[in-house]
């Protein structure tokens, strides 16, 4: 594994823009000088060494690590809307690494480690708040799964343990831990390094530093086709013109199938909306992230005081991001079963993102049967958590033309070979 740091020392960064710091903030405040652009708009070149489709955290991180770890800088990131406008800006910004399979734990643990130093690496405060993450168990089967995850986690040196109702109540006084509820809380998987982050800041931090390292970010540029000749990629068609390139990376979420279809690569993916909602703010009362698999809900309180809710993906496949009333009704009911005292808080807004679900709840990463066409897709509901490690691994994969060990279990060939990853095991025994 490569030691990663995109760090550029000194008061100025690679492209001469000033570093962010309390001192620079004061200087700008005093002088009223304008900040320089975090990223620039460039004219599109006729060709790039690497074209990344999707300007979310995965695409931008891949570009950033290609530039900083491997010195590949002639890169275009193509984004059909604005950067971070897809899954990166629509998720509930929860980070954790307490997965079930050793492959999953190792992978997401690397992601957490990269996230922990991301603010310093990118010189951009991404506000990673490691306030702890609780997954509640309401029956003995899910308690057993929590133990299973805890044991696998501990063996990978990931801080994770099963705790009882008293300790849970101490961490989250607003939880109803009485034994008479419909779904009594029997215990929880407690994961102290988990927490929340400012998701947009991660996108902007990567974009800013990738830009400083020469990466071209093209917003409002939609890919309309991928040119494949003789089994290898030769270029990308966009609504802004054609780009010649030997390497195309599909870093989209929600559009994984559609982009791969352009290269003629079939995907074991079905796209489902995942909804989220946010309440009006109240004074801080919830320090940790609380998840209940049985009740299909997760909740955290942001630094702005809002509660952010999420649930499982919608019950049927769709590319619609319109959202549903059933979702908010369900999530409110379940949150109130956990914390009756929040009943007078008001739901402010709901939204939806798209999740590309794979059969084994694990991603599809690496090369495909089309030479030069790489995928970093199929993230289901976990994509944001994996942003940095995916970027790092995909950059490695592209630069060295073979998947690094950390993603070797996630190749697309596993489906035809029947070697699925067991992350779904947690779901299968979770009821």
């Amino acid at each position, binding site marked *: 594994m490569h030691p990663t740091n995109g760090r550029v020392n000194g008061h100025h960064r690679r492209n001469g823009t000033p570093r962010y710091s309390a001192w620079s903030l004061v200087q700008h405040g005093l002088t009223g000088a304008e900040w320089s652009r975090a990223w620039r708009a460039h004219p599109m070149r006729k060709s790039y060494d690497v074209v990344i489709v999707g300007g979310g955290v995965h695409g931008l991180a891949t570009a950033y690590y290609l530039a900083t770890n491997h010195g590949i800088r002639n890169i275009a990131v193509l984004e059909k809307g604005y950067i971070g406008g897809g899954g990166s800006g629509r998720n509930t910004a929860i980070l954790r690494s307490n997965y079930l399979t050793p492959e999953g734990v190792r992978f997401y643990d690397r992601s957490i480690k990269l996230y922990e130093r991301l603010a310093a690496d990118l010189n951009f405060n991404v506000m990673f708040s490691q306030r702890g993450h609780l997954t509640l168990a309401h029956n003995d089967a899910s308690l057993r799964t929590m133990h299973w995850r805890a044991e696998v986690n501990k063996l990978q040196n990931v801080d994770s343990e099963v705790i009882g109702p008293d300790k849970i109540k101490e961490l989250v006084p607003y939880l109803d831990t009485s034994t008479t509820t419909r779904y009594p809380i029997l215990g929880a998987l407690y994961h102290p390094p988990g927490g929340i982050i400012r998701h947009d800041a991660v996108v902007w931090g990567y974009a800013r530093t990738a830009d400083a390292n020469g990466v071209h970010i093209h917003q409002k540029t939609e890919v309309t086709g991928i040119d494949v000749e003789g089994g290898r990629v030769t270029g990308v068609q966009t609504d802004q013109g054609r780009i010649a390139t030997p390497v195309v990376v599909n870093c989209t979420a929600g559009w994984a*199938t559609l982009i791969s279809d352009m290269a003629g690569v*079939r*995907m*074991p*993916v*079905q796209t489902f909306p995942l909804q989220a909602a946010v309440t009006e703010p109240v004074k801080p009362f919830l320090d940790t992230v609380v998840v209940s698999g049985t009740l299909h809900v997760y909740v955290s309180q942001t630094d702005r005081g809002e509660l952010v809710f999420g649930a499982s993906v919608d*019950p049927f496949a*769709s*590319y619609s991001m319109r959202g549903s009333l059933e979702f908010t009704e369900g999530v409110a009911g379940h949150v109130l079963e956990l914390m009756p005292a929040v009943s007078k808080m008001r739901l402010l807004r709901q939204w939806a993102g798209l999740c590309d679900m794979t059969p084994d709840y694990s991603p599809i990463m690496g090369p495909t049967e089309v030479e030069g066409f790489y995928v970093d897709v199929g993230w289901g509901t976990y994509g944001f958590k994996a942003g940095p490690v995916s970027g790092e691994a995909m950059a490695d994969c592209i630069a060295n033309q073979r998947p690094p060990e950390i993603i070797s279990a996630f190749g697309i060939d596993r489906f035809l*070979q029947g070697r699925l990853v067991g992350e779904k095991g947690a779901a299968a025994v979770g009821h």
Partner: protein
Amino acid sequence: MMLLTCPWCGPRNSTEFRFGGESHPRPRPDAATPEEWRDYLYFATNPRGWSRETWYHGSGCRRYFAIERHTETNEHRAIDERRAAEARR
């Protein structure tokens, strides 16, 4: 909430139904290669547009039925075999 038209019960709330996914023909189990079988198990067309899929009216007549649904607008229509054949061509 989408209204889904059950061929037996008429338009009903979608919460009465369970989504069964894209309709795939099942390969012959004694003749399928691993690739054919796993394509059937795991791969999907996942179109952004009209999709032929199975639904189960669990809170109604308990019939499984196939229907075409547009995956972006949620409009749906009965399957027209002639149209389907034309689309395949």
